[in-house]
């Protein structure tokens, strides 16, 4: 495994190995002593062109728990905001001896450029690029689903298992969502059945070729697909304005009525179904406070699992030798 850029690149074995490794990482995080010496002497750079304190802290925590040195390189207050090109930044990181670059960028494909343009030889982890991919988010979602719906709330006995037969509904702004794209590929690879639920305006042209079902009606999906997990996507309020990139739906009230998850819809879900959200939430828009704080909501746990999944990703990218052939096919 050289880079982690897209869940579309992950074969099923790769994905299961990532989840299994994350389970072991999660076990170490239950100890009093949470720090492992594994990546001592290795340097991980968090290169964030977009504000995302949550994701950056999650990656930073993961790297530090593995004893890597962490350098935070954010667009604010650095030469990046003064117009330094991605290429020059990459050359700088290369000169600094970065072993891994965790990159968040508003431009789709920026991590792909970092990995393949020949600017630096570090491992590249995509921490979210434009409307493209956010693979560690999908991995932590899959990990959370596996723990609850395969392991019955624990990772014990889940080793080597996939998500075969599980039904997942992903609801909201699919068009602009890298989380949705990452999850559709990964959950499909792991054997789950995905239904995307959104108004037609918030689905991309071409979605019909994705390995999932598409529905315009949340109630219908709840009745007919009886999802085991419901993943609510963040809807940005500017999507309803008439300006550039707007006018996707008439009003917050209408969106919330048709696509929001409240206690009534929650009650119609199967009893074992879990409620997920990648955060940050718009309480009262795509999800009600009742649903967000419900016992079946695993939203807070997703955050904790994010650290384990990112530890696993860093471990699998950085712990082995660069030269020796990988035991498995590379990602």
């Amino acid at each position, binding site marked *: 495994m050289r880079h982690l850029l897209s869940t579309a690149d992950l074969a099923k074995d790769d994905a299961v190995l990532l989840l299994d490794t994350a389970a072991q990482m999660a076990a170490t995080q239950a100890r009093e002593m949470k720090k492992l010496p594994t990546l001592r002497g290795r340097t991980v750079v968090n290169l964030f062109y977009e504000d995302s304190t949550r994701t950056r802290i999650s990656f930073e925590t993961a790297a530090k728990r593995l004893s890597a040195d962490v350098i935070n390189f954010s667009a604010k207050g650095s030469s990046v905001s003064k117009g330094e090109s991605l290429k020059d930044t990459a050359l700088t990181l290369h000169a600094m001896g970065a072993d891994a670059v965790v990159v968040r960028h508003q431009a789709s494909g920026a991590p792909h450029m970092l990995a393949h343009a020949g600017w630096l030889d570090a491992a590249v982890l995509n921490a979210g690029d434009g409307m493209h991919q956010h693979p560690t988010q999908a991995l932590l979602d899959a990990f959370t689903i596996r723990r609850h719906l395969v392991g019955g709330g624990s990772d014990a006995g889940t080793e080597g298992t996939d998500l075969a037969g599980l039904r997942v509904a992903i609801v909201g702004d699919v068009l602009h969502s890298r989380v949705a794209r990452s999850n559709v590929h990964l959950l499909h690879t792991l054997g789950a059945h995905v239904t995307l639920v959104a108004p037609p305006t918030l689905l991309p*042209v071409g979605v019909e070729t994705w390995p999932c079902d598409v529905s315009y009606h949340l109630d219908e999906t709840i009745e007919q697909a009886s999802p085991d997990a419901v993943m609510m996507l963040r809807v940005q309020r500017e999507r309803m304005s008439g300006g550039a990139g707007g006018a996707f739906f008439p009003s917050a009230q209408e969106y919330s009525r048709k696509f929001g998850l409240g206690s009534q819809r929650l009650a119609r879900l199967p009893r074992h179904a879990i409620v997920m959200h990648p955060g940050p939430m718009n309480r009262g828009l795509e999800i009600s406070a009742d649903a967000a704080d419900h016992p079946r909501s695993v939203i807070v746990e997703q955050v904790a699992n994010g650290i384990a999944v990112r530890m696993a990703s860093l471990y699998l990218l950085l712990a082995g030798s660069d030269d020796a052939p990988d035991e498995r096919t590379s990602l």
Partner: protein
Amino acid sequence: MTTTYILRGVRPLGGEPADVVLSGGQIAYVGAPGTAPRPATASPSGDPSVAGTAGPGSSSDTGTDVVEIDGGNRLVLLPGLVDLHTHLREPGREDAETVYSGTRAAAAGGFTAVHAMANTTPTQDTAGVVEQVWRLGRDAGWVDVRPVGAVTVGLGGERLAELGAMADSAAAVRVFSDDGKCVHDPVLMRRALEYVKAFDGVVAQHAQEPRLTEGAQMNEGVVSAEVGLAGWPAVAEESIIARDVLLAEHVGSRLHVCHLSTARSVEIVRWAKSRGVEVTAEVTPHHLLLTDERARSYDARFKVNPPLRTRADVEAVREGLADGTIDVVATDHAPHPVEDKDCEWAAAAFGMTGLETALSVVQATMVDTGRMSWADVARVLSQAPARIGRIDGGVQGHGRPLEVGEPANVTLVDPSRSRTVRGVEQVTASANTPLEGMELPGVVVATFLRGRATVLGGVPVGGELGRVGETEGVLL
């Protein structure tokens, strides 16, 4: 003193081999192989024995003014190519291209005339600026540069530029375009279509509905959905073309559609032509060859406006070109410096170079596939663009028949050779070719502008000095 060129065993328009003599700026002789007159007849000061004793494919001795080229009954002779859509970047972006470097690249690609698009800095929206570009082209001497005038001031889409002044200037502008921007205001478009009738001008529309393409990065479809780049719907192009052909019909003007790229655009133009609307259309080499699958690499060399489309669209534009719905192949040669392409896709500039590969792409996609003859190539790359640009007349004319007495604006192509495209090795000042590393058929061997060689042995020669340089004697 001018050089006389005896082209032995060349195939005019790909037909039967012939001998052709270029002398005094004109085609002086066309006849059966082996019948070309001795140099003495073409050049009174020459020694009749010189050309006769020179081996096939070699030039005469240094100091003489007769050059023989052996076409081996293989080289195809075409009227000099005419590009209706070139970005020369000067004035303003001399870091990407200059009139000199761009026209030299054009000559290397077999062109004898180019239409220089108006989106320079300052914009070619006044008589002063179009005359400047025209003079730069004339001084460079590689091809005839015909500036395109902006339709609206500063390409702003709000006020008509002084179209009449540009038409009356030394540059004698006949093609007007806001290319890069669409004249999207229907009233302005109507007025422009009407106004240019006074001087037989044409509006060349960059068809792009601006609201449907805000922030757009690539063709909207399966690939854009997956790679997460904002989609550029085909309908944003088609809706403007549909509106414009109806406007052109209503006001009885002629309309030219730039770089048409979708299957339905072809259908709309076909329909309009069937109604007798005076519309012409162009397609670029890259839209004849490449699809939006290329965007999966996030390599910004494939970022272009209009975007690369789907396989079905490529098939439709090929068909449209073959059946005459599309009149012209135009390069939309758009050079950019490295830093504008070696970056994130969304941050990169739109456009790709094309002057030096256009003929090869047309050969690969249309000739070698049996869809077009070399005579058709002459039509879409020379005669039709010259006619649309109104540079097809008189002693200086382009896109003329290959007949005695016609201006010697011709190109000699070897269709049997191929070459591998290397951006940095091209003559253009920029390396942003989408065809990097691709092997393409067809090599331009020689280009003649009014009888003067601008390219010999595949290499640009002479240039601004107006005479053939030291590489004249290269073996062909």
